């Protein structure tokens, strides 16, 4: 992987305890390289005069899970929400640099955000099902975008891929709000999948869930990467270690280090990364 953001840092010396990362059970093998889907090029995001993301460059590999970690307020959510232009709604926000999806600048005036969001789906921190039936939740996005195929089949497929079908197949017409938190989050994943996206952005999808529901979502993410590119923002390092192929560490709006997850957790190149993953701050 190309490591940008590193150039501006002073050279770091490795210390002896850098290998002591107790919670990663076994060092992950470095994943096989795949082409880049999203390419972020010196992106800065400003809220008024506050710089939330500072000259971040990174490549997101196809059909891999990329985790973005870092302490709260480090700009990781802002970065993620910039990828499908969910930040457009914030007044006074400014961008520099570029994000390219399949080689095309997503901020290009001719690029309709609706097209972008059809290909780049998103799952939010708190499950946010619509106050409609389970079926309508999954079918909604596909329906308004003029899905040509069989909607019922699409809903079933999406729910199956989200590992929710068995639990809800007999109550598709019931309100989605009656589901448990973990089920609601999987429903939101199904809802995103139904649009047949290429990329799924997940903004701390487990932070509102209990450990069992979290484990199920993590399993699901692991399965999803066979078909989708996943970008996962999390403040939970164990989670990043468990499910991601690549991990990017952000701090104060800057990308400090990005590498294959196995390497980041066993052999970080930057002192700051090492301090963070060994729990010295965060």
């Amino acid at each position, binding site marked *: 992987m190309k490591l940008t953001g590193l150039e501006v840092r002073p050279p770091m010396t490795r210390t002896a305890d850098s290998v002591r990362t107790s919670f990663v059970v076994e060092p992950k093998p470095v994943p096989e390289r795949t082409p880049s889907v999203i390419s972020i090029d010196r992106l800065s995001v400003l809220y008024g005069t506050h710089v939330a993301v500072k000259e971040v460059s990174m490549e997101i590999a196809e059909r891999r899970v990329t985790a973005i970690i870092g302490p709260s307020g480090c700009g990781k959510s802002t970065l993620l929400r910039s990828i499908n232009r969910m930040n457009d709604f914030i007044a006074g926000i400014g961008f520099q640099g570029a994000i390219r999806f*399949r080689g095309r600048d997503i901020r290009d005036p001719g690029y*309709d955000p*609706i*097209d972008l969001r*059809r*290909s780049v789906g998103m799952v939010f921190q708190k499950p946010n099902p619509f106050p409609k039936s389970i079926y309508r939740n999954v079918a909604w996005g*596909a329906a*308004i*975008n*003029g*899905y*040509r*195929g069989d909607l019922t089949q699409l809903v079933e497929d999406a729910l199956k891929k989200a590992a929710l079908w068995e639990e809800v197949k007999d109550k598709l017409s019931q309100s989605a709000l009656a589901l448990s938190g973990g089920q609601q989050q999987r429903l939101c994943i199904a809802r995103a999948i139904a*649009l*047949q*996206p*290429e990329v799924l952005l997940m903004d701390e999808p487990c932070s509102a869930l209990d450990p069992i529901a979290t484990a199920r979502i993590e399993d699901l993410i692991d399965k999803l990467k066979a078909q989708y590119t996943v970008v996962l923002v999390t403040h939970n390092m164990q989670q990043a270690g468990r499910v991601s192929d690549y991990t990017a560490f952000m701090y104060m709006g800057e990308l400090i280090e990005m590498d294959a997850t196995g390497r980041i957790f066993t052999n970080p190149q930057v002192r700051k990364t090492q301090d963070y993953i060994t729990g010295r701050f965060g």
Partner: protein
Amino acid sequence: MSASDALFEPRKQRRALVARLFHAACVLITGGAVVVLGVLLYRVWHDGSELLSLEFLDRFPSQITPEKAGVKSALWGTVWLIGLTAAVAIPTGVGAAVYLQEYAPRNAFTRLIQLNIANLAGVPSIVYGLLGLAVFVRWLRFDRSVLSGSLTMSLLILPVVIIASREAIAAVPNSIREAAFALGATRWQTVRHHVLPAAAPGILTGVILSMARAMGETAPLIMIGALTYIRFVPGGTHEAAPGLAGWVGWFGEAIRDPFVVLPIQIFNWAEQAQPIFHKLAAAGIVVLLTVMLILNGAAVVLRAFWQRKQP
């Protein structure tokens, strides 16, 4: 583009067009509301400016020489009515809000009071007029006086005062109450020294807005019989004896005087067929709206001042 595109026919142009039309409709509608307000103000000013003068404020209404009519009795009637209404409705309304927000146990009776207040707020104002007519004018024999009018008006705006005050009190953070209790304060000391001062700007705004409403209300006062050509102001026909007792006596007489208020005077003029009366009505409306604007402005200024005083 992506492989999934074959599966969708997003018809984005049509969707975007519908969305743009809808947006335009919303802008048009909201702009329309502003235009209506503009037309209203312009019409009133256009019709009334001819008769507006300082003397207009200092002349009594007249059937015989309408061109020399004025709003003196109505203006002073409004001042008396609002003053008395404020004196009755504000303490009662704030008291009720304090009770409901700070003292009331959470039981069925409290819920009943709350539901009742919400329903009272929706009772048509003319019904309050009938209540005032039956209770204050006839039963308590206050006759068609400022006193009857302001008691009726107090009951009418009480729900508004209570609801606004409750919102202001509810916005006071609980930590303030806990801090005061922890220092050994009684409930009333907590309310008196901490909660009410903190809620005061919000209460004040709500109270002034409700006073503005009382100022514009017409129907209930017509019911209690405030509609007459009155050529004196309350208390204007009596002499106050010297001393406090004399003043109190005069005040007691004054509040039993018949009266008229600005909106009723306006109604009375607007009802006449001749154009001169319509001009008088327009001029009266300008006076009424000006007084209301001053009151609303005072609310904004007082609130800003109060908020600055508090850290």
